């Protein structure tokens, strides 16, 4: 068992390395810039507190954690991951200097990606076996979109990890232990990661009702593992409050403000099946179709097999760990994560990143289904050739598992670093996704890909639109020389600019037209593509259409 556990740790380490290496090529997302600033302030505040540089005062808390929702110090998102980011920046960039600033901010997300792989491995190992665990962990590592998000200093990948960590802790704590404090604390940290966590009680609650009812009918509902419920209800919120000083000054008001911000969030523009969606009702099938197009086909096929197998085993009363019903738990976990997006009223901005907590369920199912398929092949091989059963099984599982993992790896390699433009082989890759009218990208991340081209041009202001928040960071990190400053906002920015970029999303077409008007040409000088699909266009102001700055200086 120890050796098997080492394999899990090795896979987790490989994941952290893969994520960290991969994110070196990924541009800075608009939202990350906000989190960089907030995270440094949060970490400084905690360090000041424990070193007695300051105490706890309403003013210092408000100045650090408060302010307007959607502005200020980012009080619309809880602080757990941001605080880790701030500490990581302080330790790895400022003190030790082993990472650049960007990598340091992003490193906690990479660590959490490793933790996810580890937990997926451990749960699968405990319930279904070693080959299933290895394959499930590999499928978790080899998710192109998830790998992309795991490299960002954002909360979408971390909430996937923390969500699953809660599911895992809940499952472990349902073993009847006397003090199941772990699940409450982990749930609290999950609440402190992202607001998706408020959906988790729907999965855990329903699961608890089912297993408790099966264990002892009405009596079971009250007494079956009641300590787990107490842990969730008491320690969960308590942990959230402990790690979020913003709640110390006005807990109810600030929790209400936090959740209200997301309940009434502006609808972003998002292209889906050729239509730009920015108002309800949204199509009920967004989560379904997008998942089918953004998880590697081999993983999906194995997962469907695994889910079918779970159902078949349940019907035959052969489920793993029937008392704690882990397959049901995983299914409910995925359903709770995906559920709101079937309502038609939930904004679809950001697409798959918002229901990524469903992915561990798919990957575990893929591990179970893939290995089952391998065993099926082995049985066939034994039937037609005189092969030792054990050998045949090992070889067949190895071959099938390798095919699933390598197919997923191929998709991963193809997807990076523009994974938001990537769609799986079923969709036809990035070009197929573009043909289908699926969202091209968001957050302005791909602007990084045109920086080398811009650096070859004559100096001057650049109209950067969606990449504007990140532009200063590109220069600060030395990725772009400082002689290409951001020109500014919309019309004024364009008229000042010498170069202009358009990051292709359907609703950003308007930027092309604003530039045409000012530059007097529709001809770009460079088009960055991912698998042939345009993602960023660069325009250069023709000499006959002088910028406002040039006219003024003359």
């Amino acid at each position, binding site marked *: 068992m120890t050796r098997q556990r080492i394999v899990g740790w090795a896979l987790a380490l490989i994941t952290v390395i893969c994520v960290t290496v991969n994110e070196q090529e990924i541009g800075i997302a608009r939202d990350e810039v906000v989190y960089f600033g907030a995270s440094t302030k949060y970490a400084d505040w905690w360090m000041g507190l424990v070193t007695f540089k300051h105490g706890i005062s309403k003013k210092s808390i408000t100045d650090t954690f408060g302010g307007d929702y959607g502005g200020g110090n980012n009080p619309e998102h809880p602080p757990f991951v941001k605080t880790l980011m701030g500490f990581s920046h302080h330790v790895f960039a400022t003190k030790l200097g082993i990472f650049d600033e960007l990598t340091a901010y992003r490193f906690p997300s990479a660590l959490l990606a490793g933790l996810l792989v580890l937990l997926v491995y451990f749960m699968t190992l405990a319930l279904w076996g070693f080959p299933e665990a290895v394959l499930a962990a590999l499928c978790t590592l080899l998710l192109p979109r998830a790998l992309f998000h795991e490299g960002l200093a954002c909360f979408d990948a971390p909430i996937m990890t923390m969500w699953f960590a809660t599911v895992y802790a809940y499952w472990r704590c349902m073993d009847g232990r006397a003090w199941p404090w772990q699940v409450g604390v982990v749930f609290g940290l999950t609440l402190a990661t992202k607001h998706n966590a408020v959906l988790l009680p729907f999965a855990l609650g329903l699961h608890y009702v089912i297993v408790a009812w099966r264990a002892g009918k009405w009596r079971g509902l009250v007494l079956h593992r009641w300590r787990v419920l107490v842990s969730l209800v008491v320690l969960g919120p308590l942990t959230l409050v402990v790690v979020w000083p913003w709640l110390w000054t006005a807990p109810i008001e600030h929790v209400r403000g936090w959740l209200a911000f997301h309940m009434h969030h502006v*609808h972003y*523009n998002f292209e889906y099946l050729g*239509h*730009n969606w*920015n*108002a309800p009702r949204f199509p009920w099938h967004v989560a379904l179709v997008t998942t089918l197009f953004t998880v590697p086909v081999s993983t999906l096929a194995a997962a469907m097999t695994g889910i079918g197998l779970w159902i078949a085993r349940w019907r035959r009363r052969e489920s793993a760990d029937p008392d704690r019903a882990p397959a049901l738990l995983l299914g409910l976990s995925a359903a709770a994560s995906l559920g709101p997006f079937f309502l038609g009223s939930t904004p679809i901005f950001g697409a798959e990143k918002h229901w990524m907590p469903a992915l561990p369920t798919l990957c575990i199912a893929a591990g179970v289904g893939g290995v089952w398929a391998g065993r099926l092949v082995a049985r066939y091989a034994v039937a037609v050739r005189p092969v030792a059963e054990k050998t045949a099984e090992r070889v067949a599982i190895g071959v099938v598992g390798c*095919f699933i993992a*390598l*197919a997923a790896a*191929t*998709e991963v390699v*193809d997807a990076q670093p523009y994974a938001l433009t990537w769609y*799986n*082989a079923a969709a*036809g*890759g*990035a*070009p*197929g996704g*573009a*043909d289908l009218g699926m969202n*091209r990208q968001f957050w302005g991340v791909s602007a990084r890909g045109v920086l080398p081209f811009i650096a070859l041009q004559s100096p001057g202001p650049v109209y950067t639109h969606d990449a504007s928040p990140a532009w200063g960071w590109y220069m600060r990190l030395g990725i772009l020389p400082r002689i290409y400053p951001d020109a500014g906002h919309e019309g004024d920015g364009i008229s000042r600019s010498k170069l202009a970029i*358009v990051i*292709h999303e*359907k*609703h950003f*077409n*308007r930027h*092309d*037209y604003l530039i*045409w*008007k000012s530059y*007097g*040409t*529709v*001809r*770009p*000088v*460079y*088009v960055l*593509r991912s*698998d*042939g*699909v*345009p993602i960023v*266009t660069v325009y250069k102001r023709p000499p006959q259409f002088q910028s406002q700055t040039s006219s003024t200086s003359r």
Partner: protein
Amino acid sequence: MCSTPQKAASVPRDEAWDKAEELVRAGYQPGDLIVFAPAWADPVGRLHLGDLIPVDMAARMDAARYGRIWEVSIRDAHAPETAGLTPVSSREVSGVAVRLFTRQPAVVVSDIRDALPTAKTQGPGYPSLELAEVGFEPHRCIQITPSPNSPVRVTFPGLTLGSQLVGYVGLADVFTRRDIRAPGTLAIEIGGTQVASVTAGVDDGWVKFSAPTTPGPADVTFIASARAPQRLICFAAEARR
């Protein structure tokens, strides 16, 4: 494992576009319309041939006035401008198809966008000629933002008409379309008689209208109205022979 790299490499690279560009340039005549398909390949097409596409052509009302259309396409796609037409020449170079279509173009006898300086406006609103995003496409159009329930009348006195008045209307600006979901309406009067009325909703894009006309000069009035604020009603129209 095999299909992923294959699909990733399925879009022609710049070398193929270079060859297609040479083909178009060899046969190009001033005034030819060049279109690209699928729509998402448009930036790459403009990278190669954008110098042959003036801004006004890119922001055209429609393609009817063009007698020669070059369609440069990949992945067996077709541009809407060539629907129903048969190519007079068709070549494919390394996955990029170059087709030339010819047809009898519509003869435009007057264009209200050119005549805007002579127009007279009544009501709370000022018409301006814009290069606007309407339905996520570029259009050079006359834009009015009427106050709620206060129509704005724009009259083109003595506009030369042909046998048909053809126009389009839509709501400009994706963000105001998102925030306010109400439609805008454009009615057209010729000599005081309403000949068309069209309502453009937030998801309708660039909506066509037409009316038969009697050749000769006439006062043509466009009446933009909306019940909601911030309806950026943008329209264009041509009198065709």
